[in-house]
């Protein structure tokens, strides 16, 4: 029986770097190629030696598909293509292809900033990698080769995020990042078809949570910023160059406009323009709210948000500053933090994840005294707030997705084991569900399918009968004869190979005749008659009241109304069809007197 195999090299029962291998219909596909930001050595990348020991990834993999631009999903891509040497096709959506290099550059900067970083990719490598990427359009079926096809659907997690339907023959897999509620009501792009994949691989980051609405979080965020500004404090928001930063800028800009606030908002990174450019370019990929507002005015042409100069940090009075990097471990954001940390009027809002080994991580865990260069310490008096704007789906969203796609099996990745277990329990009430650990392989058997060519004549006949033509999305029954070519084997061997039992096909027919004798006499007369007519055949009069000519069985019964009217029941096998039809016509003529 054919089977689909799924092996996570990362994101199996954890929230590290996503890298999932899928073998389907003889094709090998890598889903995401992420990086773990918590490590500074080789452990940050997936270990590709598990895929193939000779290092020839191109020979083994048919394609790589990237779901979205977050570094835990695409961060190892330049390493894989430019340093390990994978030269095959890489697929991602247009926005992801545009935004990926920005984040990779951003992270490269952080990496170079640290001492002792080796074995890391260069800018040229990022570019060369991106040149190999084939962009995907939504709902467009892309033939990777003659057998493997992929189709992207809107996922809404972040700009350009996609879920992907992968199909080889009749086997299919859907891979999705956490689909958020925008995707569930996104009117611009149709929801994923009820494609009934063999496996639906889904992230399960908030597997146990039913989250409060994003609107509540946004309101909370604005409230905190506003309060700080009102009391004359400064707000620092450490961000990565692209993604959450733009969404927060839109929020603040709109709020400032509404409340007629005058305190300056600054954005420190030089990449804002490019980021905004992409948001404008891919407006159709953004959520409904942004698109709707965009019709009224360009949301990304900020009136209140200005470029930051490092001297502004010392200016008196309130202000809001977005600064990179997002984990407060180097650069501008750290420099500003050091300046503002001592004042309890100020506030730092961490809108995302911080790995261990960064100041962001420390202050989120409540550390109030930070060691600085030269054995000095920094007293953190400013307020520290954490606020997740991540667009991961919660348990409800994931269940909704499952009901939509109706997969035969469900496979959970990118989540903590204990929480996955909870969700798995819920899913298993309706579907098979797996949650492999990293390195473990799940094999799911699928129904074997044999593609066949239909003759043109048969199709034409169907059309003249007014029936719809065959459509993969609307399966229906069609009658015809399947002609098998090339391999001729004995029926016994065929039965053995297919594991089938032999079926006997028998034809039956009733013949009425007038005969005034008893049933047994009539049967004997039939026997005598046939003996005289069919000299070369084996004819037997059996004690159970039947006459047999070869495989043909003849029985006699009387009619209830008329005792002279006899009904002859003839039954013959497929092999004796000619003889059977001959006998039925012979007996219809009556018995000799």
């Amino acid at each position, binding site marked *: 029986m054919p089977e689909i195999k799924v*092996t996570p090299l990362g994101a199996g029962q954890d*929230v590290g770097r996503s890298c999932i291998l899928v073998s389907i219909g003889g094709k090998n596909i890598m889903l995401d190629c992420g990086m773990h*930001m*918590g490590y500074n050595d080789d*452990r940050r990348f997936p270990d590709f030696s*598990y895929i193939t*020991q000779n290092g020839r990834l191109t*020979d083994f993999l048919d394609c790589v598909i990237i779901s979205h631009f977050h*570094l835990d999903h695409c*961060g190892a891509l330049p390493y894989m293509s430019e340093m390990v040497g994978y030269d*095959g096709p890489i697929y991602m959506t247009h926005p992801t292809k545009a935004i990926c290099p920005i984040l990779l*550059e951003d992270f490269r*900067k952080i990496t170079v*900033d*640290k*001492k002792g970083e080796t074995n890391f990719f260069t800018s040229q490598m990022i*570019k060369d990698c*991106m*040149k*190999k990427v084939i962009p995907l359009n939504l709902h467009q079926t892309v033939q990777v*080769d003659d057998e493997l096809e992929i189709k992207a659907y809107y996922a809404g997690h972040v700009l350009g995020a996609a879920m992907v339907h992968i199909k080889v023959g009749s086997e299919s897999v859907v891979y999705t990042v956490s689909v958020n509620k925008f995707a569930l009501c996104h009117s611009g792009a149709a929801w994923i078809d009820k494609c009934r994949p063999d496996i639906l691989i889904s992230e399960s980051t*908030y597997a146990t949570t039913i989250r409060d609405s994003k609107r509540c979080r946004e309101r909370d965020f604005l409230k905190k910023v506003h309060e700080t500004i009102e009391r004359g404090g400064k707000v620092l928001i450490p961000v990565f160059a692209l993604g959450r930063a733009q969404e927060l800028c839109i929020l603040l800009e709109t709020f400032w406009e509404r409340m007629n606030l005058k305190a300056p908002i600054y954005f420190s*990174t*030089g990449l804002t*323009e*490019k980021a905004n*450019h992409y948001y404008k370019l891919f407006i159709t990929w953004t959520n409904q709210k942004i698109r709707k507002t965009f019709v009224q005015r360009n949301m990304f042409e900020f009136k209140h948000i200005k470029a930051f*100069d*490092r*001297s502004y*940090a010392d200016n008196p009075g309130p202000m809001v500053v977005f600064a990179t990097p*997002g984990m407060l*471990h*180097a*650069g*501008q954001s*750290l*420099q500003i933090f050091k300046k503002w940390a001592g004042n309890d009027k100020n506030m730092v809002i961490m809108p*995302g*994840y911080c*790995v*261990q*080994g*960064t*100041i962001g*991580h*420390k202050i989120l*865990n*409540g550390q109030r005294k930070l*060691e*600085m*260069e*030269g054995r000095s310490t920094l007293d953190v008096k400013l307020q520290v707030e*954490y606020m*997740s704007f991540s667009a*991961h789906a919660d348990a409800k969203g994931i269940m909704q997705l499952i009901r939509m796609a109706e997969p035969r099996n469900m496979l959970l990745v990118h989540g903590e084991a204990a929480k996955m277990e909870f969700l798995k329990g819920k899913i298993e009430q309706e579907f098979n569900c797996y949650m492999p*650990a*990293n*390195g473990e*392989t799940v094999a799911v058997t699928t129904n074997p399918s044999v593609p066949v060519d239909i003759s043109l004549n048969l199709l034409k006949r169907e059309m003249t009968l007014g029936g719809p033509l065959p459509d993969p999305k609307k399966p229906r029954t069609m009658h015809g004869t399947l002609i098998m070519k090339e391999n001729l084997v004995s029926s016994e061997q065929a039965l053995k190979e297919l594991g089938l039992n032999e079926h006997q096909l028998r034809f039956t027919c009733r013949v009425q005749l007038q005969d005034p004798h008893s049933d047994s006499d009539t049967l004997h007369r039939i026997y005598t008659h046939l003996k005289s007519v069919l000299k070369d055949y084996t004819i037997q009069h059996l004690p159970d009241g039947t006459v047999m000519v070869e495989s043909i069985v003849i029985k006699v019964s009387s009619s209830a109304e008329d005792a002279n009217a006899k009904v002859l029941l003839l039954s013959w096998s497929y092999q004796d069809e000619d003889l059977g039809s001959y006998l039925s016509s012979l007996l219809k003529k009556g018995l000799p007197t």
Partner: protein
Amino acid sequence: MDSQCVSILPRVCGVLLVSGSSLPDDTSLEKLLDWFTTIAQTGTSLLEACPCLVDFVSKVAFNYTSGSSILSFTLKLTGLIGASEDGFKVLKECSVLKLVFNPQHWQEAGLWEDPCLRIGWIQGLKMILKHSEALSFFAQADLIEPLLQLQTDSSLFVASAANQTLAQVLLLCQSPSSVGHNGSKNRDLEHNSASMETTQNYSGIITKVSDYLNKSVVLKEISQLPGSQQILRLLALLLVRVGPPLRDTLLLAVINSLEELVTTSCSQLTVPLLDVILAANSGLRDDCVPKQRLIRLLWVMLNMKKPVDVMQAAAAVLRSHQSDPALSAHSARVLLLPLDIVTGVSLLDENSTEEELRILITEQLKRKSCISMICVCLSNIPQITLMASDCLPCPQRLIVTAVLLLLRLCCVDSSSSSAGCVEVVRFITGNSKVQKCALEALLVLSKSPGVKMVLVEVFKVLTEYLNSHSSDPSVLQKSYQAVIKWVRVCPDLSCITDQLREGFIQAVRKRACDTRWEARDSTVEFLGHLVGAPSCWAFTEQEMEPSDVLLGGCSFTVPLLKEALQDPESYVRASSISALAQTLTPSWQDGTALTQEQEDIVTQLQEVLFQDSEGFARRAAVKYFIAWFSACSSPSSCWLLMQSVPTVLSQGVADLDWEVKLHTLELAELVLDRAFSDPSPSHPYAVMSDQDHRLPIAGQQSDLLSSLKNLVDWGVVSALLCGVVDCDRPVALKACQLLLKLRGIVCPVMDNTADTRVFCQLAGASVMQQVRKIQEMGKDTCVVSEACSEADKEGICASVDPECVSVCEVLRVLDLDEKLSILTQSSDHIYNSPLSLLQDILTAAAASSPPGQDPRQELVMDCY
């Protein structure tokens, strides 16, 4: 080791024991192990350094209520402690060792099912197996059984680690005398009786491994396939790692099974089986019996009935560089067969032994799966070209011809036909996978002897690809690479006629306007790379630059590149700037006078620096000036360059992109080096006489003063001072290094009177503030005002300018050495240290609240 770390480690262990789930993040335990490993590697006894660890390990082992990640960590830690003989002894004495490495213990607790625990067990075991005591323990506890079971574990990670560990066990068994026992003679005597016993146990281990391999190698049913693959992987690893006589023992134990396995001709096992045979074959003498049997096995595999498997076998044989010439020659013939069949180019002689394979491959090539077969053929051409010419089935020139014909057949716009297998054409036409493989092969074949005569053909085919609208961007990139490669290898381009050149120029022009940025970028990059190719002979029998021969030189490339400066894609703009620098470098080196076009380029590049919204282009622009300054033998005589440098420096150092700033400082370094080694003008824009071109003599204050003034005027000092307070560490480091260099040149020579005459104006108020702050931190004196008032007295500084600093004083007062020592360290050296990690573990534990109530939990799971 930091005593502070040691002092808080017991508390950390306590936290790990009670609340393993509230760790800072998923990397914490790994990082903790890294720290312990570092301690162990320095030669310090881990137990002496951290005595609380034994207690921790014992508590976890005896009370296995901890989470799987803590258990796994503890197993690894036990291995690390037990890797030293004294640690091993302590663990043994407190009965931890037996318990921790007893799989039964974990199975009874229902924890063995967790792959996380199994991986901990394996890795711990692997770490401990460093000395004979550990091996003896391994043998006595009969751990070989569970270890063998894990060879086919459902987890790839566990199985792979089990493979490695078994190899290590065998290596230890191989020479028990060579490991451990670094004690005295008496100690050896004491161990003597035990040694005899353990030797016997080791042979038991080897027998068990041999039996296991022999039994497991044979594939009894298809469901065992993954296990069989795993066992073959293990066998290949063992045959590579262990030496004779153990290697021979293992080989003899499995060779019958291998022969049996070969006859099953299971496609999924072809590659791992070949790996085993080739690994076994590589270390054997030609005259030994197994060698003959292995060679026979290889022949069997090369004569299987499945063409795909035969191709894979041939490829593996060639890659292994094994010594049998007949095998290599046959493998090359097998690999070239698809190319021969598809193109109809007779690469192989009529050979009846291959006739059957030819028929089978021909049939295969008529199916969709032909693509992978052709790609295997093409990707192994580099191996074929490495073979001795007498082993080659045909001259390399013929292979080039066949590859070129294949490329033509693959090209959508080509009308070529082949005398070979027609059915395959519909599958390969337009297939970028085959096209890329063929172009890769063509790249390698450029080195083949006697290929000059096909150069025109190569050129025509590559032009066809560049012209084709359906060429994939990555195919175009490879086509350009092939052009460069062939041009580099063939110095005689006299065969390139005007007609060919015209066609090529048109193709390049077309691609420069391609709608796909990837194609435009590759085109622009190609123009730059072509300049670097060595001179060649042209059609006119003159020595010329390849770009002149192929493209007609700068008159074609420069306008094209100038146009690309306006490209909407920043990558292309950056590439065009780099290509312009490469193109113009020869003229800069020659000192040729600047053309109007070049002057326009400089204006455009300054605009890029000021206005381009993206860093790539701005970085390239600064690098253009670096290339120009480096290539110019006398930059001071090039007025436009000297006029541009101050602008580039002031703009570049204030850029938002860290690499632009860094490159700007590289330019500053060039200017600085030149200022103190070369004749320098009194003013950057002044016309200089020969008399002015004199080297500043060390010790002559006036010359140094003049050079320093020039540096200030050009904006070098201001750029360095701006850079040294930058928030990006690499920028600040570079600036600091350059300031130290400047201090080293200037300060020892200048006396106090002289230095005050050189002032530097700082660009931004913030820079000024920061420089002042550093000064104040370093010294109590306010150098700026003093310097200015001193200068004022001399009439140099008209008023006290708050943005003006005395260069020499600043260099002296800024604590550059201290700053350098800080900047040389990693920017995260404090927060990514063991102490920081330990503190984070403690803080996380203190901050953790019951599950579901801590909003931070969301953050921990959040994406980057």
